[in-house]
């Protein structure tokens, strides 16, 4: 099946006008499958880390949101051990007007502002609520070990 014009355009633009700290490169053999890397935002426990993600555009994209997952281990209340992300725009709040670029920006923002009230990794969220400095330290530690560039 031919690649929709929209995907082609998005890909072109990701290359032409890259977002600082974010990189998304499609696979040669499957242009719907992207290797993504996101730099941890400054002043966050993830600063200095480079996180790898995989992104897949399903058949009915943009009617349905892209499927996206962290490959790098990350200690985050809204990201579980499998790398799955709890983000409203990836679910019910998806709109076809959103794009790969906007979604990745949202994820980057999520790293800067963890939301333990809407947890995906319950243990992490729990710790975040009870012992925030400890949790942040662990997050930093994980970033050092797993997300070193």
């Amino acid at each position: 099946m031919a690649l929709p014009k929209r995907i082609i355009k998005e890909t072109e633009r990701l290359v032409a006008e890259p977002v600082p700290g974010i990189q998304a490169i499609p696979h040669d053999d499957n242009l719907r499958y992207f290797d993504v890397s996101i730099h941890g935002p400054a002043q966050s426990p993830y600063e200095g880390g480079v996180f790898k993600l995989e992104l897949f555009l399903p058949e009915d994209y943009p009617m349905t949101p892209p499927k996206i997952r962290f490959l790098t281990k990350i200690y985050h209340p809204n990201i579980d051990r499998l790398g799955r992300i709890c983000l409203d725009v990836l679910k019910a709040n998806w709109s076809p007007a959103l794009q790969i670029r906007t979604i990745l920006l949202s994820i980057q923002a999520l790293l800067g502002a963890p939301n333990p009230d809407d947890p995906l990794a319950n243990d992490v969220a729990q710790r975040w609520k009870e012992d925030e400095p400890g949790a942040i330290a662990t997050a930093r530690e994980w970033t050092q070990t797993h997300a070193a560039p």
Partner: protein
Amino acid sequence: MEDTNPHPPKRRRFFAVSSPSPPPEASDPILPSTPLRELHGYAANIDPSSDTTPFAEQDEDTTLEESPEDQFGMGMETAEIKDLSLRFDATMLETVVGELSADVLKRLDDISGGNIERAINMYLDGSWKEAKPSEPKKPGKQSPFDSMLGQNGKRKSSAVTGQSSTAQTPVSDEETAQRLDRMPYERYIGSFGAEGYAVRSGSNLLSHGEEVIIGRQQPQQVQKTVRRGKGRPVTVVSQAASKRKDIVVRFSNSKGEEIGRLPHETAQFVSTLLDQKICSFKAICVYAPEPLRSNETIFLQLKCYMLRQTFAPRALRLTETNRSTGLFETKETEEEKALRLRQTSLVKLFNEIRLFPTSAGQDSKAKRDGLLQVAEMAEEKEKEEAAKGNNTPAKDEEEPQEGKELEQDQLDQLYKKAQTFDFNSPEAEPAETFTMDLRKYQKQALHWMLNKERDKKNEGQEESMHPLWEEYTWPIKDENDKELPTVENQEKFYVNPYSGDLSLKFPVQEQNCLGGILADEMGLGKTIEMLSLIHSNRNEPEAASGTDSKPFNLPRLPKSSDVVEPAPYTTLVVAPMSLLSQWASEAEAASKTGTLKTTIYYGSDKSLDLRAQCSAANAHNAPNLIITSYGVVLSEFTQIANTASGSRATSGGLFSVQFFRIILDEAHNIKNRQSKTAKACYELDALHRWVLTGTPIVNRLEDLFSLVRFLRVEPWSNFAYWRTFITVPFESKDFLRALDVVQTVLEPLVMRRTKDMRQPDGTPLVYLPPKTILIEEIELSKAERAVYDFVYNFVKRSFADNMEAGSVMKSYTTIFAQILRLRQSCCHPTLVRKKEVVADEVEAEAAEAEAKGLTDNMDLQALIDKFTSQENDGAEVNNYGAHVLQQIKEEAQNECPICSDEEIQEMTVTACYHMACKKCLLEVIDHAKRNGNQPRCFNCREPINEKELYEVIKHDPDVAIGGLSGFRENVPEFSLRRIAANKSSAKIDALITNLKRLRRESPGMKSVVFSQFTSFINLIEPALTRERIQFVRFDGGMSQQQRSVVLSKFKAHTGGLVLLISLKAGGVGLNLTEAKRVFMMDPWWSFAVEAQAIDRIHRMGQTDEVIVHRFIVKGSVEERMVHKIQERKKFIASSLGMMSAEEKRAQRIEDIKDLLS
């Protein structure tokens, strides 16, 4: 029934009554007994040796039977001569030249070959005195006017061709005569053993080595015209006798005492051979018991001799009956039966004596077996019918239904042979009055057609043996290895096992039809080729004022009822109604002004009296081209047939004149030989007969027969003949042979080139721009789907019920109507309830017959209401503030936020003023609904719904709206319209989307929209109006006048225009090359029909790529029609609307089964 008759051919028996006193030669005892020799005795340079005694008479057995034989022969002769002198109408001749003596008459007849016109001319110019006899003209053209015109045409052409063809004929005639003269009265061909049985007892009746006389039983009925000799049993048996199947063959000893009979299986063929005077038999007793008792076996050795008269040409036989067919079918079975007996007997004899052809088209063993099998089948059939109490003509009526359909590979094979077109064949330049430029292959076609009309043999082609014939060598030794006398230059003889014809002359495959089948594939320019012929071979009135006009001044034939007036300057074109104006305009375009007077003979324009108009006397004003429809031909034919006299002349119509040339366009219209239209067309009279068709064989071999019958190609135009050689072998699975024969019929007759043929240099014959066919899958809306599903389940249940009850055929119309509704529901739900006329007559009938079921169904009504409820409120909404429109205008520059298209397609705004492509917005809503979510705006997440979407209508000032131009100023640049109002049906939406894109991307491009439902077209119209898309409409309900107005408007219009056209009315013939886009709204049962429609646009003259969109509803019967049924009949153009109703039904039931499975 000629062949059971004692007389050789070349005379018509029924003239005997009116014959004048027999010429004195009749009693001349010196003349040998065979009339043929005698006939040539009049030739000036007769071979003197032919009067010496034939060698058979010097041969070993000159005993008892010799003198009776002579007497018998003399008796024959008397009758013969009477007949011979009257091949033409002596009375008529005498009214022209004055009274003549009997032998002058006779002589004239001989030299003129029975052609009265020739006879008159020769008598008047005195050339008859030294002229040599010539063969009679081919019977198919024996009508005096035919031959006159033929003469006329030939004279003209021979001036060009240097006499080549005319000079040849008499020579070969003479050859035949001499050859026949050299042949002894009878000639040995072989012998075989037989075990006869005795019918009497006694001793010393028969002994070894004794001569035995073989003879037939005395026939019971009285022979009136023939005096019989005594002694030898008479070998003449009339039809009546052979009908009784009396096959007893007796033998007697040299004393004349009857001894016994031949066994049944031998007698079977020996009797026929004796009756039909093909052979004589002499037998020797090999062993007979002594004393002999009744029923004891006697061993005989039978020697078989071919009679000379057998070899005399018998060509008249078949054709005479054919001619007498007249306006109505006559039974052909008597003739057919004699033919069958003759051919099987010969085959059996040759098998017995182990005589095999030295050269034949194919394996002769298989051939013989096949022939015998055919005969058996025919016999069985006859028996069956006798059992049923049917008489034979009735059987004839049933036959066409039996014709089996051709498999595609067979059809391919057939066409491949007919298509071996020689790219180096000569070209001809059209006459100067023809203004168009012909392509190379068209000039070649012209050359070929001119040749056919001038009856020239194709030069460069070596004479080949007629494929139906076999070559045999005369045996040079007899059964005892004794040398037989040979005849100089006569080592071979030729047998046509199909007809039982025998000949001493090499049978050349010849062609004597002055026309043919132009079967170039659609779009190669058959019409233009034909028009070039009309220009290039015509009679000029100026020339006619000289000698050429002489024939036309001859007094008319006495049989007044059938006088047809020659129209030597007029070509008649018969075409489907929708093509009449196209023919007229193309004829005009191809001719220099004033060089081709063209008349459409149709409807009220029919007032002219063709007899007066087209006669030779009116040469300077006679129309050169008359264009009429099949309907007119049929109605005039019925009119004439219904009058008591059946007189052609009084009508003053098409049947009262003999045209110079007739052209049947789209000739598959007459493919059914039983149809009245076909019969009517056969009766049209013309010198040259042509048919144009892209599909000479639609799906069965009989289709071709009808064309051949129209062309009057002898002998194939005789159905009995056709049946024996083609239908029956084909039905008995001997495909190869049947197809072989068909090929030989086709080859000289047909010129066929296809679009994909390549010239030797590799360039295509015709350059056509590419054509792309896209299947566009249509998703039904929910409401539409609900209607569809309802109808589908209803139909499926009803069909299953009928299948179970075995009443499918009975309730055919109901089922069919239901399927029709189902298909319509794919197009537009409201069609389901409409009773309007639909395209197909069958469908219309079916729809009307639909008594119960869908139309009154309340549940269905509810579903449809649900659908239509979305449809109300179609008003444009223009109460938005100017700022909104301004915003819209600005945003219109943006790309679609959903699909990223640079320009938003069919810009649509939500109630919250967010804009995207219509398709994208609808998809968003649809996607949400499918997942059970509330659809929200992609931008602000406000809830949205379909009913509150507004399409932005941009009024392009460049696009002129026909008739609306004054109104344009009041139209704002933008306006909004509720999308729901536009939601007519998924298919219409898709069409509109496509048309709008087309308008945007290629402004000014014309397109054609085909649908088979005129009621659907009715619904498309308002949608186009709404979108301000200009259109014109062409359908079957329009008069000829209206149609041509529409077509010329479509052609002449500058700028974009849509032609809405019904598949049935516009599928054939039209030339719509102005359009570049085609939309097929609904699939037909076979794609061939759609393809033909597409070829209206993608044909010669098309300059651009053609893109075809076929709209197919996903997950519906349409899909199955396309993928299953169309696939299945990909190659059989069986649904061109020419099958019989019965066939159609059976096939449809099969299709329906597929649809609902």
